[in-house]
């Protein structure tokens, strides 16, 4: 914050300055065949400087806190500003009187935790994963990683926001083999301090997901009811959340641009973005411009209720920021969701599956970046999972795609599970039953 304030103090008359300072410490330990494959202990810092004057904006960043580099960034930002087209909505955020929530996201215990014990967790994760089942032939990776991040934002308009968060993560990719066939499975556990982590769950999930894919076949093409596992639905909801950015709407790149007030999802679907929910791995009390984050209901009972805004998109829309500026130190703030979830239902995944005569449980998808077009809404991804027959889990299936459109999928949500699960991404997962998707296989 001292550095941010120093730079803000360099503003000249008629100029707005915003300075973002980020400091991160990370540890990553990987285990392989009972040894420490690699151990990374790293510290990084960065500064982003945004200058606004005469309705123009310029930006520069540097990956060090050295005075010469920061001064160079300020000079570059001013120079860059002179090439921008004036825009009356440009400007840094103004304090809006909303107090930042007091969130408990920092654990001193993480910083104090000995590196040796972090390494031991990675080794134990590998050992446990290999011991779950005889058919686990190896691991692709078993790792422990954590980060301690601190962020400060200061502006000439009077914003002073500082936040710090800790997070840690265990993940394992297991390889299962039988009769010359290999399958993979992913398991993880996350928390704010090492004590939150459950090595056994991560190991068991990785092993079970890999072994249950053994003997998998390519399914025939057709139309089927699909059950999205939380890991998959979180990725889908993250994409949906992305289309509700005020910036995408204003730039004519959101398929929901003209749909406020319309029924865009099944009546049971309520979608909320709430970075103040401490359960969210991505929780944060302040946004990328230093304003308080808040709970925003995006879709209420199927009806599109709200887009998310930063201060600039809010000014353009004639409204107020929803505290949804998202950015790192190396970019200007965008407007986007941070912690999206749907309000869960009453039934477990097993209960939901029991009610399906003919369908597929999707446990993994691939190619979300290449086969989903968030502007047109076309949705097509590679998939693997378990066939459901007569309410029972049947044979594993792989090498097929599932396809629909984002618009259709939201309307086709038939049921929502009770198994809400926060994941290391901007959305929480929950089991979703989608009425009908096209399966492309043989």
């Amino acid at each position, binding site marked *: 914050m001292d550095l941010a304030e120093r730079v803000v103090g360099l503003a000249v008359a008629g100029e707005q300055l915003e300075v973002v300072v980020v400091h991160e410490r990370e540890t990553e330990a990987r285990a392989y065949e009972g040894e420490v494959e690699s151990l990374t202990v790293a510290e990084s810092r960065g500064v982003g400087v945004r200058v606004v004057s005469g309705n123009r904006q*310029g930006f520069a960043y540097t990956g060090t806190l050295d005075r010469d580099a920061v001064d160079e960034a300020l000079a570059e930002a001013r120079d860059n500003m002179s*090439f921008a087209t004036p825009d009356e909505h440009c400007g840094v955020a103004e304090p809006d009187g909303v107090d930042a929530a007091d969130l408990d996201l920092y654990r001193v215990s993480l910083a104090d935790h000995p590196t040796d014990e972090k390494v031991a967790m990675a080794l134990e994760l590998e050992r446990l994963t290999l011991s779950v089942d005889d058919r686990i032939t190896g691991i692709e990776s078993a790792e422990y990683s954590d980060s301690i991040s601190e962020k400060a934002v200061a502006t000439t308009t009077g914003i002073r926001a500082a936040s710090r968060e800790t997070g840690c993560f265990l993940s394992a990719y297991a390889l299962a083999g039988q009769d010359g066939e290999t*399958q993979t499975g992913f398991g993880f556990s996350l928390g704010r301090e090492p004590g939150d982590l459950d090595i056994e769950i991560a190991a068991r999930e990785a092993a079970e997901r890999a072994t249950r894919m053994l003997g998998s076949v390519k399914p025939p093409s057709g139309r089927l009811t699909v059950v999205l596992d939380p890991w998959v639905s979180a990725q889908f909801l993250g994409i949906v959340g992305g289309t509700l950015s005020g910036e995408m709407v204003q730039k004519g*790149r959101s398929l929901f641009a003209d749909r406020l007030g319309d029924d865009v999802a099944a009546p049971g679907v309520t979608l909320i973005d709430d970075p103040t929910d401490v359960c969210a791995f991505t929780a944060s009390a302040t946004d990328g411009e230093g304003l308080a984050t808040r709970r925003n209901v995006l879709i209420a009972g199927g009806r599109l209720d709200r887009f998310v805004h930063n201060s600039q998109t809010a000014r353009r829309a004639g409204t107020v920021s929803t505290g949804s500026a998202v950015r790192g130190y190396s970019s200007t703030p965008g407007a986007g969701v941070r912690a999206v979830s749907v309000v869960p239902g009453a039934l477990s995944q097993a209960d939901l599956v029991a009610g399906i005569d003919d369908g597929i449980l999707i446990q993994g998808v691939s*190619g979300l970046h290449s086969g989903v077009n968030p502007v047109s809404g076309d949705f097509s991804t590679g998939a693997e999972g378990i066939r459901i027959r007569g309410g029972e889990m049947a044979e594993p299936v792989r090498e*097929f795609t599932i*396809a629909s459109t984002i618009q259709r999928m939201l309307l086709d949500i038939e049921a929502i599970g009770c198994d809400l699960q926060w994941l290391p991404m901007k959305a929480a997962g929950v089991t979703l039953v989608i009425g009908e998707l096209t399966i492309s296989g043989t």
Partner: protein
Amino acid sequence: MHVDNDAAPLMLAPDVLAETLTSAMGTGAEFAEVFVEDRRSISALFDDGRVEELTSGRDRGAGLRVVAGDTTGFAHTADLSPLGLRSAAEAAAAAARGGGGGVRQVSLDQHTGPAPGPVGIMPGDVPKARKVALLERADAAARGSDGAITQVAVRYADSHRRIQVANSDGLLTGDRQVRTLFSVFCVASGDMGMQTGRESVGHTLGFEVFDEVDVEDLARRAAGRALLKLEAVPAPSGEMPVVIGPGGGGVLFHEACGHGLEADLVAKSASVFAGRRGEVVAAPIVTLVDDGTMPGEWGRCAIDDEGRPAQRNVLIDEGVLTDYMWDHLRACREGRASSGNGRRQGYRHLPMVRMTNTYLGVGDADPDEIIADTAHGVYVAQLGGGQVNTATGDFVFGMTEAYMIEDGRLTNPIRDGNLIGNGPQTLLDIDVIAGDFAMGSPGTCGKDGQGVPVGDGTPTLRVARLTVGGTAA
């Protein structure tokens, strides 16, 4: 034209590097390495009808790697003073925890290595106003091509990256890597909703790229792609022959087998291609090469990020798997030389095995005849990235411009979607390759959270059977 062909200048003095490496080896490690990087970049975005912003960035620092036994210790620092380097070296050494202890003095050889790629006009010497002017021209061309173009985003970006690598084997080398990128993203709106079109060009060259590349033409092609898809029909669903146009298919090989031929994944048996060297893995018409030396291409470098000269590596020769791709660590364990494929996103990252420019050798078929010879299938003119599970070989890739083939003719354009296949099977199912050839769009390949620039290229080719992931019956 001014050609900057000088060897990359030293960034840190050899004695500072040698002392740093000596500190790193202090706990009895077998190998230590300093990777120094200084990267300047600029990105200009024209969006929503105006110059939205210019962003300048600077990143400099060093990554210290220490290997003891099976363990790699890594630390990085933005502090390039002798003290900053020494504390990072000690942190990396502590992480690797070498057993023996003792002192091993490191001395460095004379600076060696191939010269950096020639650059005609250094981007840093070009006024920002000229870069911005390119954006405006591209925006106007895209919008001018049809009233249905409702949004255009144009980006110009360049970077100037200097690296220096020194290691305990005495290696001292460096490189200067310049990249220039220009991309156009259009949205077209019609009765059936919105569609998108993208086009980009990128080279390891300077501003002279724009002597060859007409940004207005590039913009019109991106716009044309979005407009075309306004009339697109839903993609078909199921298995069928797929013809891929020149340049497009590189992504297919990158995913179908490229990642599976990376020695780190092979060593962990996390690749379907493990243990298959010398075997027939593809149709005999398939020869696949990874070549870091291709002049001007997006994945080009004089040296990799471990200081090893880039080279041309034949991976598959007439259907036979000849070799994997190697980094320093994996190569050492096999008692062989690295293939120049040890790359990293930046000084904050450990190097690992990565592709550079991957391409398929030409065949002798006529591209038009390949289409004429296909009764029913899909023609993919532009691909949009992909993903693979190397352990199972299942891979996907996206299509962002594609058409139905009916009775040997291209008919309706089809909507975006993924195709899915299994790598080893797909390589065997390639039944014809044309004599044309083109490099594809500049790509960023992601692996373990690190992105590195890669290029790829192919002639027109046909895969006898792939699964198209659309919604139409």
